[in-house]
């Protein structure tokens, strides 16, 4: 276990509340409105990849919308410099749709009425075989809050069996204890994706009214535990559309910056889950949906502030948008995804967590990547050398 | 003939207030100089602050 410097007094909780990023966003909105063109120009003239809260605020401001092309050129240059002309490919493997939470935006919400499925380890391995046959060696195990079945033991066993086929296995499941993350790390899981969904405390409580996920603090502090367990990659993100995306981006960046400083052996990456149509979820309650332009601005602004962060885009987004985002700083994307447990083998019509909008096969996505002058990377890391 | 550390320093003409003393590798606090007996065969190191970067 790695522990952070015992002299550090601050933690992410203190940082967020100290900068009013956990609820009082009126202050930020005013600052954002006051950004002028000259501020944006100055921010763009500063060293690309350097983070400061002010610089990020300037780049995500309304004023910066007039500078998107310039931001894009800089983001593209910086990404190619740090990551080369490569895009990593991964696939999600959904393990269960049984859920104890009642998140208002999610298709797997426990009150939603549909036939739930969960996979045994054997069934999960079957799905994994199909994924591997497409060429993937980077796998993301996804599950809803189904702790009793998709337990730590289950995940550890599955990871152990998957290690020979996949060079990088990460998880996107419920928040756990440090000991649990440690166990999974020993079992071969090397990355954890965990979205805060929203850093706004009040909004968080509104959108997550019940179930274990309703605990804001536990969620917020989970990445510390993930890093302390030695995980190599930590995936952060907010569910874009729950609240004002600009404040969320500022909070997300502060969280990332804190983790990068304290847990310098791990790589932090950002994902951009955008609210999408889901079965049985009422879209009219969402007032903060992002346009494509705003999503692009967020991606580029984060790239220009974090030279080495991974930027991940999933198949939630439509093909043409994904193709264009590749040149704006994206470094990793999924392809051919199925978001329902058993979806790869059954090609089923069972309810997925959200609708997919890029239905291209992995081979087609890889071809598109090549067409753009990038190399699709299926394997980036070999755990076998450290065994 | 055994003497105290304080006596030795006096004999050498070294001001006690400006040095740190070690006897056989153990640091002796200044207040204890007068009470610290030094025997033949023991090694004394006297160290002081000097200019440095």
């Amino acid at each position: 276990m790695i522990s952070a410097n015992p002299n550090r007094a601050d933690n992410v909780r203190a940082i967020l509340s100290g900068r009013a990023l956990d609820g009082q966003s009126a202050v930020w909105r005013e600052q954002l409105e006051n950004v002028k063109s000259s501020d944006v120009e100055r921010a763009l003239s500063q060293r690309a990849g350097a983070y400061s809260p002010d610089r990020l605020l300037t780049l995500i401001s309304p004023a910066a919308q007039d500078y998107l092309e310039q931001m894009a050129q800089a983001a593209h240059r910086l990404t190619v410099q740090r990551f080369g002309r490569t895009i990593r490919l991964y696939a999600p493997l959904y393990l269960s749709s049984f859920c104890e939470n009642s998140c208002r935006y999610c298709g797997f919400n426990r009150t939603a009425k549909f036939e739930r499925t969960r996979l045994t380890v054997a069934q999960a391995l079957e799905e994994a075989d199909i994924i591997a046959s497409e060429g993937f060696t980077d796998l993301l195990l996804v599950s809803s809050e189904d702790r009793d079945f998709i337990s730590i033991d289950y995940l550890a066993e599955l990871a152990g069996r998957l290690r020979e086929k996949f060079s990088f296995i990460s998880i996107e499941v419920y928040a756990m204890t440090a000991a649990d993350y440690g166990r999974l790390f020993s079992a071969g899981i090397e990355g954890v994706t965990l979205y805060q969904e929203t850093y706004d405390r009040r909004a968080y409580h509104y959108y997550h009214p019940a179930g274990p996920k309703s605990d804001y603090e536990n969620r917020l502090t989970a990445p510390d535990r993930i890093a302390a367990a030695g995980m190599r990659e930590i995936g952060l993100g907010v569910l874009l559309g729950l609240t004002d995306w600009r404040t969320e981006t500022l909070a997300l960046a502060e969280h990332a910056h804190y983790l990068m400083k304290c847990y310098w052996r791990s790589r932090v990456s950002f994902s951009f889950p955008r609210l999408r149509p889901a079965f049985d979820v009422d879209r009219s309650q969402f007032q903060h949906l992002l346009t494509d332009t705003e999503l692009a601005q967020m991606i580029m602004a984060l790239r220009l502030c974090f030279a080495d962060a991974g930027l991940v885009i999933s198949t939630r987004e439509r093909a043409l948008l994904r193709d264009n985002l590749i040149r704006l700083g994206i470094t990793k994307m999924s392809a051919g995804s199925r978001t329902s447990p058993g979806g790869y083998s059954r090609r089923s019509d069972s309810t997925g967590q959200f609708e997919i909008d890029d239905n291209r096969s992995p081979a087609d996505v890889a071809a598109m990547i090549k067409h753009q002058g990038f190399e699709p990377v299926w394997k980036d890391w070999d755990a076998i050398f450290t065994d | 003939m055994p003497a105290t550390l304080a006596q030795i320093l006096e004999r050498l003409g070294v001001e006690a207030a400006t040095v740190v003393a070690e006897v056989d590798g153990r640091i002796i606090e200044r207040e204890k100089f007068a009470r610290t007996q030094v025997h033949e065969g023991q090694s004394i190191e006297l160290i002081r602050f000097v200019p440095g970067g």
Partner: protein
Amino acid sequence: MDDLVIAGRQFKSRLLVGTGKFASCEDMAEALDKSGAEIVTVALRRVKIDNKNDDMLRAIDLKKYLMLPNTSGARDADEAVRLARLARAATAINWVKLEVTPDPYYLLPDPVETLKAAEILVKEDFVVLPYINADPILSKRLQDVGTATVMPLGSPIGSNQGLRTRAALEIIIEQANVPVVVDAGLGLPSHAAEAMEIGADAVLVNTAVATAKDPVEMALAFKLAVEAGRMAYNCGPAAPDKKASASSPLTGFLRDE
């Protein structure tokens, strides 16, 4: 100029000065005074019997300066730890500049012994300021064990070559959780200003001041340079303009929205 904070203690000056190599006590005392420094370094040496009370340091007013003992002369962790404990026994000050330099030619610091000594000294409640080569990973490892700062060199001690390690210093500064004090090799006030402009929290200078023709004026020059550099850093300077080669537009697709 905003205050420098090390181990919870505030300082107005971001210029630390070493007391070595001065021609005389008077020069040293006056130069320290003109420099505005609040932290000055000293070393520990065996008393020379024929030179018993040559106490150059009598000229330093200990009420005015925080005297920071260094462990220069130590060639390994054990020697450094011993020197630190001796220094603390003498003054009851628990601050130490950790310097482990087994190489007598360039006086470059040994990273392995430095980390080892730092870990021991932090556990014994010392405020440790480690002198190191400009190694970003070593800096993180030292911060993990709890040192109060990191002190990466600009170039070898006494070489006056300035920031030969600039690229690495920038990384250290970007990643640091503690104040970064650029120490060693600063030969001119412009070097000190440069260090401050790239975001260093402070600099430590010795040779350039002590061996100048007029050390007192040079001390003042360094003081002004450090202040200018810090002011510039705080004002948010623009980066040098890198002309990019023209490339096809990347955001055209957004206009269709």
